[in-house]
């Protein structure tokens, strides 16, 4: 029983990272119907840039700089990869361009930071805290708190500020928002900036718990796809629940079955959700008007 509780706790931290990346998918999918297949690479770049910065300053000072870097990276992806494809209304176009940008980022990262995984110095004590016999790393608590905080901040921004209202309006109906004088192109760029920013943030959150390296993003980005679909591509609550489900399922499968198979239940779950409720556990099915 204690082992199970322990697995659940580790699963929660992992799940929150998935949720944070999936949240990034949702942000851009809402405004433009596109998503960045290189979200995992945005996370990886955030972590590696953070690693370089941490050599010169404290972890906490580095955070805002990484957020700015993430936002700029998102703008770059949108301008180079997504914008031209939106203009030609080509789904194939944006999928291929975001993938090819991801490949390029990964290759560049390999050439700059090398092929080997590097440890990221932890800003918090690495000794676990004992809690009813369950050991929790302080960093795991920071992951959960940090992930929730940034999602909450983005949500508050969307709900309360006038710029946020422009984002919501664009999500609801891009053409109508455009007619009302909202620069929807700017809103889409902005959503990409936010999206990559959250990914870069997720990168520096997870980095002290795992190793940093050019390949760290691929699998995380992929898992977040499952989370986004399981939770629903348009439900904020959904990604958190979806992330937690996937995180916990993975750590428990890894322990009880085999670490080799820990990625398999995620896909099975994904296919099941699509078969039973294609809009996701928490997603609303949208009726397309004719």
């Amino acid at each position, binding site marked *: 029983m204690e082992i199970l509780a322990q697995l659940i706790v580790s699963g929660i931290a992992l799940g929150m990272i998935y949720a944070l990346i999936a949240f990034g998918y949702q942000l851009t999918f809402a405004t433009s119907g596109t998503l960045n297949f290189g979200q995992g690479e945005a996370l990886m770049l955030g972590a590696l840039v953070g690693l370089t910065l941490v050599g010169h300053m404290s972890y906490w000072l580095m955070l805002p700089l990484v957020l700015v870097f993430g936002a700029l990276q998102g703008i770059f992806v949108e301008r180079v990869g997504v914008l031209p494809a939106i203009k030609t209304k080509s789904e194939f176009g944006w999928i291929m361009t975001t993938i090819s940008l991801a*490949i390029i980022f990964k290759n560049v990262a390999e050439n700059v930071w090398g092929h080997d995984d590097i440890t990221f110095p932890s800003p918090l004590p690495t000794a676990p805290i004992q809690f009813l016999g369950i050991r929790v790393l302080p960093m795991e608590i920071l992951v959960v708190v940090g992930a929730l905080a940034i999602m909450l901040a983005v949500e508050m921004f969307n709900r309360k500020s006038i710029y946020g209202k422009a984002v919501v309006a664009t999500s609801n109906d891009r053409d109508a928002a455009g007619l009302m004088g909202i620069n929807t192109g700017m809103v889409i760029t902005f959503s990409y900036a936010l999206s990559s920013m959250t990914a870069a943030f997720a990168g520096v959150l997870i980095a002290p718990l795992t190793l940093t390296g050019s390949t760290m993003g691929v699998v995380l980005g*992929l898992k977040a796809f*499952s989370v986004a679909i399981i939770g629903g591509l348009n439900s904020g609550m959904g990604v958190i629940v979806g992330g937690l489900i996937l995180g916990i399922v993975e750590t428990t499968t890894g322990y009880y079955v085999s670490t080799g198979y820990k990625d398999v239940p995620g896909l099975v779950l994904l296919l099941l959700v699509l078969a039973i409720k294609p809009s996701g556990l928490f997603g609303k099915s949208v009726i397309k008007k004719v």
Partner: protein
Amino acid sequence: MSAINKTSIVLVLIVAAMLPTIWPNPYYIHLMVVIAIYAILLLGLDIVVGYVGEVSLGHAALFGIGAYTAGVLNFQLGLPFLLAIPASIAVTGLFGILLALPALRVNGPYLAMVTLAFGTIIQILINEMTFLTNGPMGLSVRKPIWLGHQVTGTDYYYIVLVALVATIYVVQRILKSHLGRAFEALHDSPIASDCMGVSVYGYKVYAFVLSAGIAGLAGSLYTYSEEYISPNTYNFELTILFLLAVIMGGRKTRTGPVLGAIIVVMLPNVLSDIELFKVISIGIAVISVVYSLYMLVTHQRSLNQVAIPVIATVVLATSGFFMENITDHRLTIFGVMILFVVYYLPNGIMGFLRNLVLKFKPHWIQRHVLILEHGDKNHVWSVPDHPVTTNGHLLEARNIVMQFGGLKALSEVNLNIAKGTVHGLIGPNGSGKSTTMNVLTGIYKPTSGEIEFNGKIITGASPSKIAGEGIARTFQNVQLFGEMTAIENVLVGLHHTFKHSLIDVVFQTPRCRKEKHTAEVRAASLLQFVGLEALANEEARNLPYGKQRLLEIARALALNPSLLLLDEPAAGLTAPDIKDLIEMIEKIRGHGITVILIEHHMDVVMSICDRVTVLDFGQKISEGTPAQVQSDEKVIEAYLGGSAKEA
């Protein structure tokens, strides 16, 4: 097929057959085998990417499943080559079904996301299931021994060549048949396709499974070519390589995949030799500069448009002189190539050449197969697939409620349509007429209520199912298959008359040819009925608005409906055209087809409708003969506002 085409195909085959004698080096022969195998896979991938318009990131995994099925069956059970190949096709097809059934239920990038996840999982499974696959150690198989003769590399080249030619032939047959037409139709207008009984979901799954089966064939051939397989071959990079090959070669062609395969197989060789890379990248830069200059001089492109590709190619060419070693930057170059192709060669090399030919010798290329059948009056009408058997009303909608969030578009609407009548449905804008149409044809699932058609409850059935039951429709905002010709549009409506199977298509059986001929005569006759016979081979998007509406009627009639829903057919028609339309609707009624007519031209409604229902704010406010409705005070109030007395 023209004589020139036939001779060129024969010539290409002869050259392909002679290649091993020209280059007897085993390394080259092996490269040619791999090119042919990739080409087979790409022909299948093109069905999904080019025709259906979905993105699959799982074709490397499907290729791997094919390879491992053949490998495992041979290694563990000793199954011979000729049995292992069909087994691979079947198993990979099954995996295709497993993926496509859930992933294609929703529109959007879901297939890409799911297949990407699938790709990683398959690699993990191959690695982990050591009892079957021997894990990371890989499997060894030998080329078959036939009649005491060990098949050599050169022999195997001929085997793969035969497989490639067969695949090209089969894929070509399928895409030129009603199946290919269905694929193109669902890509062009999914809604119209569903309402013509061509289920978008069903045919997308069909296309994906076909494509998976072909990937299985390619995979199993690969196993015997390499004689050793290991899990790491079938990775994400290979998937991207396949997609690059399809778009670079040219989508929706048979030559494109072959060309794409040649490029991506040679690519690693180019990218490992820096001298060769310099030569080729300089070549590409020169071509791009010359072409851009030509476009600038002829004012076809502005400086801004050509600046980026020219700079990119020149940077690529100069970068060759600064890199000491190219393998470290291989993936970056690869990514830049994809970006370049997506933006500047969206139709691939074949598409680019095609456009060049079209510019100088337009008559060399036919965009569509001309269908020159002549229609006649005897072939316009046919009996419905499901004859009308009910004794009561043909259609009864009971207490229909349709709610969009907080808005009730329809509240408690009852509608009874008598057999053989023209039933008008009128009301001010926003009164729920088109919503009613969409509920009746299954595009919207009603929040509550029940619809009975021809004695069957059809509430909640899919649009294609309802179309199959015999309800055809036209659309308020025209939904034609724009890139298809007029007659092809009608042929999509006749899809339900093609009862022959894939096997018939591949072998062009008499049954297949007969059904095709019958359908073409029927389509020509229907076009004649609506007065469009002269425009049969014109692309639908080029027709004037009024003619497009008439084409929609012809397409709907092709479904052999017992109930026809016309949504504002007179919109955009001139006065004499409207007179023809009224005559047409009367003829349709004369042949026993019941009609529901939404129309704003009151003269049309009043002159042909037997009964009229009036909707306002989602509620039925009046029903009766045209005369009764016209004098109903509620109706006058709805249209003119205020009460009649005040006015």
